């Protein structure tokens, strides 16, 4: 099976060959200029071809990036869940502190009430 030639590679090779030939002292200055002008034009075509091929792949990138962002977000959410667990423990600690305060106040009230009734 014949290997498919990449048009970008083929065109780039032709452009480079033209540049090399344009500096060949064995050919006339006019021909050198002609070769240089052709190299310049073909290099412009190469840029246009590359831009066209790159644009064709843009939608695929958007899709892949969205999928990978979803995975990254899921990872961030998992991290948040672990943090939530710690917050819950902190919440239970707060409840214990609040109950403690209430009990201390109740004991204080009971002591005061006992003193008052004794007096």
């Amino acid at each position: 099976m014949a290997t498919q030639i990449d048009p970008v590679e083929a065109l780039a090779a032709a452009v480079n060959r033209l540049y090399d030939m344009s500096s060949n002292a064995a050919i006339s200055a006019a021909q050198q200029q002609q070769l240089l002008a052709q190299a310049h034009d073909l290099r412009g075509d190469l840029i246009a071809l590359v831009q066209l091929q790159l644009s064709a792949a843009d939608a695929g990138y958007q899709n892949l990036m969205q999928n990978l962002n979803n995975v990254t977000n899921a990872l961030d959410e998992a991290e948040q869940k672990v943090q939530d667990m710690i917050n819950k423990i902190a919440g239970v600690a707060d409840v214990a502190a609040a109950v403690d305060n209430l009990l201390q106040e109740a004991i204080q009230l009971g002591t005061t009430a006992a003193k008052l009734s004794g007096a």
Partner: protein
Amino acid sequence: MVKRTHLISLVLCGSPIGFCGCTTVTVCQSPVAQFQTAVNSASDGVRTYLLGVNDVIAKGNLYDKVGTPITSGPDWVANDLAGGISLDTIQLRLQALATISAYANALGAMADSKDVANLGQAAKTLGDNVNSLSMTLAKADPKLDNLAGHLGAPITSLVTLFGTLEIQHAQKAALEKAIIDGSTNVDAIIDQLKVDLPKFAALIDTSENAIWQGKLRIYNVLRKNASPNALDSLINQCVADYDGISQLRQAQVTSLLGNMANAHRALVVFAKSSKRPKDLSDLAGQINTFSANVQLFNAMLASFQTAIKASQ
């Protein structure tokens, strides 16, 4: 005595404490962090490479016109400086790399999370508060005195122990799931970049050829009237110019992406493995190759930029 110490070490290695290091998230920290660092560094290098492409094309456009006589040749026009590849096109490839970096950073954040340390503080506060509550209860009912002052420490230990196991299990599970879930997309992005970046390389290559041919023409005009001393500095300048131009040509962006793909594949294999030392060393080998390649690539770019600045 010595034998006894060894025996204790062996028992510890086989015990849950020693085993923790092999089964929990800690075993993933180092390779994930290395992967994260190398991906971020590679992204920076490719960013420099891609953002430079239009500069090189624009220079090529202007140097192309050096070969034609000023009287009959085309003028320099603003379009020469446009480069040719739209910024959106370049930005999208950079965004794709940034997406892989963000993913690698999220992996790193999860692997290196300080949640277990935060849990320790939360558990201690809970223990202290329960202790205080217990003593208050003892004041209210003296029968509870035995309990007072004895609850805090055990509660702290229990919450820390079970909470730590739970957090590490959750971290490890989330990390492995993310590595496996993200693998197809990361591979696909790297594969697409491996298709695209050689196209940029072709543009850089031909444009550098244009720059070099133009520069040679200028040097050839200059050397005709140069004194021996001026000729010497002209040669030095010419060699420096050539080195600067050829550095970017030698930056092997495709091989960099190939090593990134290999390192990522190794990370996926590791996530699915039973995390034996051999699995870890296989992974470390691939990531080290990738890291070394990134360093080389970035060193070449840095040397290219130095050469550009020197010639300016």
